[in-house]
């Protein structure tokens, strides 16, 4: 048999186990079957392993589906890890995704094996398909293995400057994952967050704010610059992002703006409290201490969030509602009411949360929801928690005017089958009775009627509420007390019995005949009562002993004796205490003198208050508000600052150059800190070099243009890394004092001087090197990174600056003011997409001209950066100013008005196509690569006959550079000349090739995706080269 068995075992599988079971004796057959079952299970996973290792895709896929099925059911599939991880590089995208799912689930448990898959992700991070890059980053960052933290960090940095916004969004998510894995990376991650916050894509905004909230919610300073952008983007952000951004902005606004509430912001806390008690209108009418002006940014936030009240997403609506509640002036808050009431139509869970928030709101501001009171009427089909919340709100909304309606409604509720709800209603009636004195009697009578109700809970609740009400005005209601005494026999609920006993005792003087009788009954049933009733019985006995000792002395002693031997120590204690207090003996004579005053002291009436009274210490709409305790990770909403912090911190780069301009025309405000950060002051040194930290968008553009140039430019990036290092050092130095107001504010006299010495340097083009550098990445990482994509795109200085200037305004038409413009062919300082224009203004009249500035423009959408108003131009004096115009890559003239104090003149600037370019430096190799991408439609060419003197190299580049602002590409061949540039507005690459042929002909080829500009340029070039 044993041999037999062995041979079966060789075949493996379940069969052998079954065989064993069959062949052994009956007694052990159970064990055999058990073994069989076990091995089936064992075989199942074995089977999966086999399938995963097979060569067939379909089998693998099938196996993975089953494995994921196991995970979904919560079963353990971890022992398959080695088999699964092998398939991570599979070509089949579905299989790959399933493997990813598996990896994310089990990598934490099998860290060593998980490392095997990392290289696959690193490769995928460079994939041309953005979906694959994104999912690789998603998985890589979801693998919670501490060893790969540096790799994750690198990948996040790469992805943060990816050209695809979807990948950048993924990187924002990865930031949070990395942070939860390794908190030490915080500083580096904040840098990435800072960079991503500048991102203009709506896709990224929500995710990066989420990362901000998780990693560094206290770094409010990172928000300043992006505040307006976020406000403006908000409507287009996806709905989940909106929720996160709104709640972040709520917190932000509470730290940056002063209180819009009419009460003085300084004593906000105090006046808030006063607000609860006092009548709303009264507070409102108090004279204002000082006029309040709302910060325009504050208004911007309120204005831009308002349309979101119409969102279909309930979370968005709620977050806007809480924003208005916490930030808007009191008279504007009520615009959220309708929307909140609308949410009550939504799912039950939504109702629950919204009702909670309304409950908190309605306590402070009844007026907001009063018109919608009927929306809070309870239906028999509502869930219990919804019912009690509605009841709560109805109670808060009740006032003198509507109380009768509310009470009628309550009458229906009291009859409800849901007894818990009926009890709640009785409490609500009690609260209404105390709040509104007019109806106290009505309510009391109603409650007394309920005492004859059949249901015990209702009666008991009524007794308790009546007791509370009677305490507020006991004098008039001895008949109610008598009535309750009569009911006493029928009431069995302990709390109610105790309440009646307490009432008897407290007001025993009003019912002198009944009270002793009740005590007599209690003495009989004392032993069978609940503890709480016994305690009150002892109390009643003591009080009666003091007031009516003649009738009750014996009864009291009897009860005290019973209490002395009670099982409950509380009762024994109380009995002992009472006995010492009231029964006079030698030892404690002093105390018993005061017994009357101790036991029958007038007691304050209890306050019937809402459970939501001080819920609003938590920000509305938060989890903490819902559970009424501080949830972990809850961020406090700060109080309004007494004095608003500096508003200018929110000014953004677009406006920033205005401040640079003040260098030339120092007339108004100070440069902002951002100025220091964005521009290094080396601009003023002879070697003018500006390291311009562009925002994410333009960087992406650059990298996308030059993505083919990786080999070449990596060396450049290393070169520039030292620069960027020094740059980032500078930045660090500056960020240390982020709020420093370095008022570089030369006096008016200095102005012309500065402008004189500044401009010549500015124009000496060969010294002016403008480089765009990815300065955010610390050089260490970019050097280490195998995946580095950092591309510096060198915008070089113009090869030639034409001296030719054009008339803008003739002195005859300009009534003495003459203006000329020329294109200095410099990258525009104000915005990279603008073309800079130099204008010289001369006063040829005999009187000073004042306030020369730019007025209306057309087309209206024209983006012009105006020069600052020239306050005064003396006769015969002239001044040179710079402005930036975004021609939007067309030669359409920019029309605008040049105004003086008295007059305005319509003028226009007509650019030549060549002035709309910026030269870039490129190697021949890159040039060819780029050219290869711009064939077909994007190519235009022409053959021309050249003048003989143009046949040498020098004159060729000369006329070309005159016509167009292009950079010369070093060429290996003598007869081919190449020029490269990009359009100012869209940054499209423009490539010009001039190929010299025999018999003084030449072939001009232009490659650019802007084909219109290409053909115009070709025309100009043809003309220039042929005539020269």
């Amino acid at each position, binding site marked *: 048999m044993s041999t037999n068995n062995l041979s079966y075992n060789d075949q493996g599988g379940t069969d052998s186990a079954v065989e064993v079971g069959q062949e052994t004796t009956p007694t052990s057959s159970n064990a055999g079957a058990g073994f069989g079952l076990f091995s089936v299970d064992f075989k199942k996973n074995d089977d999966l392993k086999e399938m995963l290792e097979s060569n067939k895709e379909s089998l693998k896929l099938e196996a993975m589906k089953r494995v994921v099925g196991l995970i979904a059911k919560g079963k353990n599939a971890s022992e398959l890890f080695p088999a699964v991880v092998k398939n991570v590089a599979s070509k089949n995208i579905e299989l790959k995704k399933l493997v990813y*799912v598996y990896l994310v689930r089990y990598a934490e448990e099998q860290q060593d094996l998980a490392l095997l898959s990392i290289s696959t992700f690193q490769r995928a991070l460079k994939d041309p398909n953005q979906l694959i890059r994104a999912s690789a980053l998603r998985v890589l960052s979801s693998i919670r293995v501490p060893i790969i933290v540096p790799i994750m960090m690198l990948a996040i940095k790469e992805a943060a400057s990816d050209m695809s916004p*979807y990948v950048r969004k993924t990187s924002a998510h990865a930031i949070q994952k990395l942070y939860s894995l390794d908190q030490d990376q915080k500083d580096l991650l904040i840098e990435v967050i800072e960079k991503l916050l500048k991102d203009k894509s709506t896709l990224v905004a929500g995710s990066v704010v989420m990362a901000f909230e998780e990693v560094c919610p206290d770094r409010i300073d990172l928000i300043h610059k992006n505040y307006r952008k976020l406000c403006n983007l908000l409507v287009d952000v996806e709905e989940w992002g909106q929720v996160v951004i709104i709640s972040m902005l709520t917190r932000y606004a509470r730290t940056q703006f002063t209180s819009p509430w009419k009460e003085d912001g300084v004593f906000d806390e105090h006046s808030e409290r006063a607000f609860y008690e006092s009548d709303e209108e009264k507070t409102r009418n108090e004279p204002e201490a000082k006029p309040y002006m709302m910060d325009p940014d504050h208004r911007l936030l309120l204005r831009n969030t308002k349309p979101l009240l119409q*969102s279909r997403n309930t979370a968005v609506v709620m977050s806007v509602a809480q924003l208005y509640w916490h930030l808007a002036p009191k008279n504007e808050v009520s615009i959220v009411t309708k929307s909140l009431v609308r949410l009550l139509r939504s799912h039950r869970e939504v109702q629950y*949360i919204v009702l909670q928030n309304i409950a908190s709101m309605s306590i402070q501001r009844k007026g907001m929801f009063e018109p919608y009171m009927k929306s809070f009427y309870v239906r028999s089909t509502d869930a219990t928690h919804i019912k009690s919340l509605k009841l709560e709100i109805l109670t808060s909304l009740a006032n003198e005017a509507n109380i009768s309606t509310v009470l009628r409604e309550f009458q229906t509720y009291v009859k409800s089958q849901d007894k818990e709800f009926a009890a709640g209603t009785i409490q609500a009636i009690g609260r209404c009775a105390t709040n509104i004195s007019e109806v106290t009697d009505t309510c009391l009578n109603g409650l007394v009627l309920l005492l004859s109700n059949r249901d015990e809970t209702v009666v008991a609740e009524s007794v308790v509420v009546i007791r509370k009400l009677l305490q507020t005005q006991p004098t008039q209601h001895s008949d109610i007390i008598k009535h309750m005494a009569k009911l006493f026999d029928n009431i069995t609920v302990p709390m109610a019995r105790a309440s009646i006993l307490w009432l008897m005792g407290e007001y025993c003087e009003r019912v002198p005949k009944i009270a002793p009788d009740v005590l007599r009954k209690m003495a009989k049933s004392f032993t069978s009562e609940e503890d709480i009733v016994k305690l009150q019985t002892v109390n009643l006995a003591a009080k009666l002993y003091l007031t009516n000792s003649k009738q009750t002395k014996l009864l009291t002693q009897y009860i005290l004796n019973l209490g002395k031997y009670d099982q409950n120590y509380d009762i024994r204690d109380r009995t002992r205490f009472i006995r010492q207090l009231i029964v006079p003996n030698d030892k404690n004579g002093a105390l018993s003198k005061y017994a009357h005053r101790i036991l029958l002291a007038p007691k304050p009436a209890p306050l019937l208050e809402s459970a939501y009274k001080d819920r609003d210490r938590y920000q509305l709409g938060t989890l903490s508000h819902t559970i009424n305790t501080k949830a972990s990770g809850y961020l406090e909403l700060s109080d309004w600052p007494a004095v608003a912090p500096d508003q200018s911190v929110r000014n953004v780069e677009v406006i920033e150059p205005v401040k640079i301009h003040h260098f030339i025309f120092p007339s108004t405000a100070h440069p902002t800190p951002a100025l220091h950060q964005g521009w290094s002051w080396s601009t003023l040194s002879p070697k003018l070099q500006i390291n311009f930290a562009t925002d994410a968008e333009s960087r992406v553009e650059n990298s996308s243009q030059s993505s083919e140039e990786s080999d070449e430019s990596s060396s450049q990036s290393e070169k520039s890394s030292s620069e960027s290092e020094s740059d980032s050092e500078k930045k660090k130095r500056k960020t240390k004092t982020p709020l420093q107001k370095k008022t570089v504010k030369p006096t008016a006299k200095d102005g012309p001087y500065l402008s004189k010495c500044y401009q010549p340097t500015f124009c000496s083009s060969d010294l002016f090197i403008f480089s765009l550098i990815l300065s955010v990445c610390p050089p260490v990482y970019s050097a280490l990174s195998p995946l580095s994509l950092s591309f510096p795109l060198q915008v070089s200085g113009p090869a030639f600056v034409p001296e030719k200037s054009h008339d803008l305004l003739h002195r005859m038409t300009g009534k003495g003011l003459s203006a000329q413009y020329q294109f200095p062919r410099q990258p525009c300082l104000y915005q990279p997409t603008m073309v800079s224009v130099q204008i010289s203004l001369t006063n040829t009249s005999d009187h000073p001209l004042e306030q020369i500035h730019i007025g209306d423009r057309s087309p209206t959408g024209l983006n012009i950066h105006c020069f600052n108003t020239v306050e005064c131009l003396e006769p015969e004096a002239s001044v040179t100013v710079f402005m930036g115009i975004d021609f939007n890559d067309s030669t359409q003239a920019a029309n605008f008005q040049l105004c003086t104090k008295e007059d305005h003149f319509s003028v226009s600037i007509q650019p030549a196509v060549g002035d709309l370019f910026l030269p870039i430096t490129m190697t021949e190799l890159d040039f060819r690569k780029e050219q290869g991408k711009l064939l077909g439609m994007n190519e235009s060419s022409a053959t021309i006959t050249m003048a003989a003197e143009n046949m040498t190299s020098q004159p060729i580049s000369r006329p070309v550079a005159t016509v167009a602002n292009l950079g010369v590409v070093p060429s290996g061949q003598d007869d081919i000349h190449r020029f490269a540039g990009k359009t100012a507005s869209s940054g499209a690459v423009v490539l010009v090739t001039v190929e010299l042929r025999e018999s003084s002909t030449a072939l001009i080829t232009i490659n650019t995706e802007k084909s219109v500009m290409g053909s115009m340029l070709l025309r100009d070039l043809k003309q220039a080269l042929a005539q020269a």
Partner: protein
Amino acid sequence: MIHSLFLINPSGDIFLEKHWKSVVSRSVCDYFLEAKEKALEPEDVPPVIHTPRHYLISIYRDKLFFLSVIQTEVPPLFVIEFLHRVAEMIQDYFGECSETVVKDNMVMVYELLEEMLDNGFPLATESNVLKEMIRPPTILRSVVNTLTGTSNIGDTLPTGQLSTIPWRRAGVKYTNNEAYFDVVEEIDAILDQSGTTVFAEIQGVVGACVKLSGMPDLTLSFMNPRLLDDVSFHPCVRYKRWESERVLSFIPPDGNFTLMTYHVNAQNLVAIPVYVKQSISFFESGSGGRLDVTVGPKQTMGKTVEGVMVTVHLPKTILSVNLTATQGSYTYDNGTKLLVWDIGKLNPQKLPNLRGSLSLQAGAPKPEENPSLNIDLKIQQLAISGLKVNRLDMFGEKYKPFKGVKYITKAGKFQVRT
């Protein structure tokens, strides 16, 4: 944000779990199951439960509990809204949302959940986007898949995800271009014993089924937009145009979607289309009672009232009912004490009536309160508020679409107190 999701059936079995961050043991659900035991009805389970280390936020929908585990502060509505989206997604993909459907499509549901959240933050919840990433199952496709080995997983990034209009995919093509709009209005009302209206309001939904090629830009205008008091829109609707001109201007999603929901101005009196005469009484002796209900048309604007149904939750102490209906049929479930009378069309000449006796359990006291009646009804070709679509214009595409508008009035939460 959202840490984990558990799907739990009414008997308390966890049949699916998904973790977006590190794994949370399913024992965390015990707190929830405990609360569920305490609650009388599944609807009564509190949506937010506070446990020592986690917060549990759950919804109950389609006889399933969707339970999410939260570790840090997050707006509860954010989670609730998301959970409902999950349920809607399942409904959208597989036609219904139930335990069997989820179990049958376990892997696909799991993959969808994986795409919907990243690290607990919603990534793709737009149905159009999801459907491009993971194609919904159809019989044809599953046959093709088994034969050719292709998969349901898309390998390109959905176009919608990147554009500023994530709800629409590019390159939509139809041979028949059509756009249908359904104006559905629901009357929420509470009537008291005497038939007077305690509370009534009209809520409306404009649903749409748009099958148009390319990138159509639609404009829908109403004859009487003043009626609309409070509105909420699908993200595609341009709010500015609505603010200034009171027209709906939008590039529609492809397929079915809810264009807007609205609330009709509260000042307008709501026409109640039916009246209910009822008397439910219990004998003082406590042995039983009588029930007599008649439903008749009231303000129907000349249309027929259809699909009338009366639902009554009878008191727990009822033992049995013995009723006769002059029209339609009634069912009574003794377990849930639910009496449903399905009437159908209302005939003004012959009013339907349901009457008979109720018997109480022996010794049970006379019920305190009479049960309230919930009414269901439907009127075709009528928007009870009087709202009318004026016209639909299309810009941006050359073809002529086929257009249609349908009006329906229904009863929402329509309750008659007795």
